[in-house]
Structures are given as C-alpha cells and as structure tokens.
C-alpha cells in the first residue's frame, strides 16, 4: 500500500448504467475508500408544470416521470388527489389497479435481472430475461393499450375495463410464465459464476440500513421487513400481505429478494383475479382539490411519497415526489466504501438506480 489516493470518475456514461449518475471514487491501490455522488443530468423540472395543467390532466405528466415504474406514479398521484378530495373509488377499480401494479413490478424486476446479467457479461441470460418480459408487456398492451406507458388511471377510477373471460385466459397464461421464471431464477441463485460475483460484496448491516433510511429491496436484503404495501392501501388490505426479506445484507441477498418477489407477485395477481368484484370502474369527480396530502405506495424499487397541495382552483400549487432511489443514495455511499474497484459497477446496480425518477 503506497498510501497515495487518486480520484477516478465513474462517469455518467457507463455501459452498465441504464441512466446517468456520476460518482467520484477515491481509490487507494484498487480499494475504494469513499464515493461522492453527483446528480442532476436528467433534471427536467416536471414539478414546475403543475400550475399550468389542470389537475385531471396532470396524471398524464405524472406517469411520464419514469419509463420503468410509470404505472405506480400515476396510481399514487390519483390516490393522493382522491384522498384529498374524499372520493371513494369503486372496488373493482382498486383491484384492477392492484393487478396492473403487480404486472408493473414483475416487468421491472425482470428488466433488472437482465441488466444485472449483462453487467456480469452473461449476455444470453440477459436475452432470456427480456424474452419473458415480452410476454408480460403483451399482457399489459392487451389490457391497457400501451406497453410502457399505460395511461389507464384517472382521478376517480380507471379508464378501461377488462372482461372476466379475458381475466380467466390470463390466469392460464400465467402458469407458463411462472415455469419460465422458475428456470431463470434457478440460474441466478445457484450458478457458480454468478454467486462468486455476488456473495459477500457490498454489505449493508441492518442498523445502518434503518439509520440511513434505505427502502425497498435494498433494505429488505438486510433483514428489515419494511414494505409500504403492509399499510393496506388499494386491495392489499383485503388480500393480506407479508413482505419478503433475507438476512445477509450483501448483493446476493438483494438479488434473492427480487427473485422471490417475482413469485409473490404472481400469487397476488392470481388472488386478485379470483376475488375480482363486479361493479363500475370509475366515479365522476366534481369540484377542486384543496389542502395538502401525503400519498404513499410501493414501487418496484421501494417506497415512494407524493406530496400534493391545492388551493381550491383547478390548478394545483405544489407537487413533490420523493422517489426510492433518492432515499437509497446514502446507503449506496456507505456500501461502496471498502470494496474493490472492479466490483463497483455490480454494487451500483444492486440498489437498482432509476435516475429518471430521482431527478424528475
């Protein structure tokens, strides 16, 4: 050890990162001492458009904050406005929103598994994960009309209905998808090469995770049972929900949490399809929102908070989003200290950075 420190930029352009984030790594002889993050490459200022579009049309802007987690943004926004105005959404609409939210979670986790395999160099596993993701996107397109941006939530319910006949066909297709996912997750959990790159790298202890405010699979991989779905919003209160967590705190545990959540989501979708109530799918909303509200829900990456404020006109006054990636950045800074330089891309990917949402 010579004791001299160099600073290496882990730049906004990197083959491993889906979106740009910059880290300055302070390195001493191939060990990383600390990292300083630097963000702001995709800041679009979406929150300042809120006083120029009516609150009902703002749903279309809210769902375009991020491409991967777009459905949960629009559903959380609608939940916030409905809570503020005291609107009661029909039960069938909440079950449909739960179903689409869980499909959104499956497709996001499969996307992450593919990107992670690509970062290790395992490209054929990348293509297999995204092949399964295509069948999920087909389901989303057949029911909502769009593959990536669904555009199906509105204040007061949902815009489209799904026939019961279609729902039972979807149930049969889910069996085939589940078998393919089993053989895929078998590779991630048990393959020798993948395990060598994951086990013991990027450790985050349970106390650190709670004190730094980590959320989502990053926190659940360290043994914390934190999940916003336990509060029982939408249909989770009727179905009953228990979070999945792993002890271990390293990259392998976080990967295992995401693999197990895939199967948990398939179970939730099956329960929702069998218990789907009849009835209308939307109510008409009159009046304007007034007051303030904190709306919380569980995105694929963690817990998201929307803060909405209105003053009685049809334009809202403030809209603020706190995304899970922003809450995981302090945990990332603490994980990277002490690892080797060659492991940095994998460790950055294990927290699942979604920088487009982070800096709307």
């Amino acid at each position: 050890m010579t004791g001299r420190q160099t600073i290496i930029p882990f730049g906004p352009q990197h083959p491993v990162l889906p979106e740009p984030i910059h880290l300055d790594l302070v390195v001493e002889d191939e060990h990383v001492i600390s990292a300083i993050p630097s963000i702001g490459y995709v800041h679009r200022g979406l929150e300042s458009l809120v006083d120029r579009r009516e609150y009902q049309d703002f749903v279309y802007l809210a769902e375009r904050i991020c491409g991967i987690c777009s459905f949960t943004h629009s559903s959380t926004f609608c939940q916030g406005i409905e809570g503020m105005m005291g609107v009661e959404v029909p039960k069938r609409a909440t079950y449909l929103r739960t179903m689409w939210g869980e499909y959104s979670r499956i497709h996001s986790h499969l996307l992450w598994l593919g990107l992670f395999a690509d970062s290790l160099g395992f490209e054929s596993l990348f293509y297999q994960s995204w092949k399964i993701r295509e069948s999920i996107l087909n389901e989303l397109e057949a029911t909502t009309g769009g593959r990536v941006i669904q555009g199906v939530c509105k204040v007061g319910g949902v815009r489209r209905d799904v026939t019961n006949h279609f729902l039972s066909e979807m149930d049969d297709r889910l069996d085939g998808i589940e078998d393919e996912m089993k053989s895929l997750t078998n590779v991630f959990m048990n393959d020798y090469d993948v395990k060598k790159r994951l086990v013991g790298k990027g450790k985050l202890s349970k106390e650190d995770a709670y004190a730094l405010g980590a959320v989502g699979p990053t926190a659940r991989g360290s043994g914390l049972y934190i999940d916003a779905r336990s509060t029982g919003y939408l249909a989770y209160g009727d179905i009953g929900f228990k979070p999945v967590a792993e002890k271990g705190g390293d990259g392998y545990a976080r990967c295992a949490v995401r693999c197990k959540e895939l199967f948990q989501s398939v179970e939730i979708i099956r329960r929702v399809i069998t218990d789907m109530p009849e009835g209308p799918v939307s109510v008409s909303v009159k009046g304007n929102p007034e007051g303030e509200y904190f709306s919380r829900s569980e995105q694929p990456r963690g817990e998201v908070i929307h803060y909405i404020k209105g003053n009685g006109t049809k334009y809202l006054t403030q809209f603020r989003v706190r995304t899970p990636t922003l809450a995981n950045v302090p945990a990332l800074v603490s994980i990277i200290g002490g690892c080797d330089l060659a492991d940095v891309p994998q460790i950055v990917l294990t927290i699942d950075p979604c920088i487009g949402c982070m800096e709307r």
Partner: protein
Amino acid sequence: MNMEITSINVADVESVGVRMKNGGYRLVVITCTPADEGYYITYSFDKEFRLEHYRVTVSDGAAIPSIGKSYGGAFVYENEIHDLYGFTFEGMTLDFKGTFIKTSIPYPFKKKEQPAPTVTIVKEVKE
C-alpha cells in the same frame, strides 16, 4: 394517511431529531413548500407505518440546524432544498456547497414576484 402536523420552532429541530432517533423512527422525507408568508419545512418520520410530521416556518434565506447527527441520510434532502430554494442548513454530514443540482437559474423554485402564466401557449396562434 396520518396528516396531523405539529408546529415547532427552528431552535427545536435538533432536539426533535434526537428524540425521534431514540424512539426508533425512520426519516421519510423533508419537504419545503411556499406558504402565505415565508416557507414551511416539514419533517416526516415513520414507525410501523404511522407517519408523524413536524413543521417549521422560515422566512427567505434563513439558516436551520441540520439533523445530520441523528440521521446520516438527511444530507440528500437538505442539499436539494438548499439548491432549489436557497436555505442554508448548518452542519450537514456531506455538504455539496450548491453543486448537488446544477441549474441555469439559481434557486429556481423560490417564490417569484410575477407568477408564471397559468396556461402556456407554445406556438403562435393566428386568432
């Protein structure tokens, strides 16, 4: 969703942070919103899915003590509020000195004298 908000003074911020940390609460978000006079900064904490909010009223350019000693992860929210609204937090764990979010106008979300037009017309329309 629990929406009760308790008002506190600027000087009590650190003691609230210590009390919440000892009580086992987790910091969720720090929000800043313009009010009729000055701004409100709201601290939200969560324990077993119940939210608690504490609110401070500040005027333009005020200095607020940071809760970085109790919650190491608070620097993310405090730097963002500093870059967008112009408040200083004293004693942050990681201080970016204004370079966290680089914008072409300094402090873009401050209250402006002339509010922005409510409906933007992007193209010229011949009426």
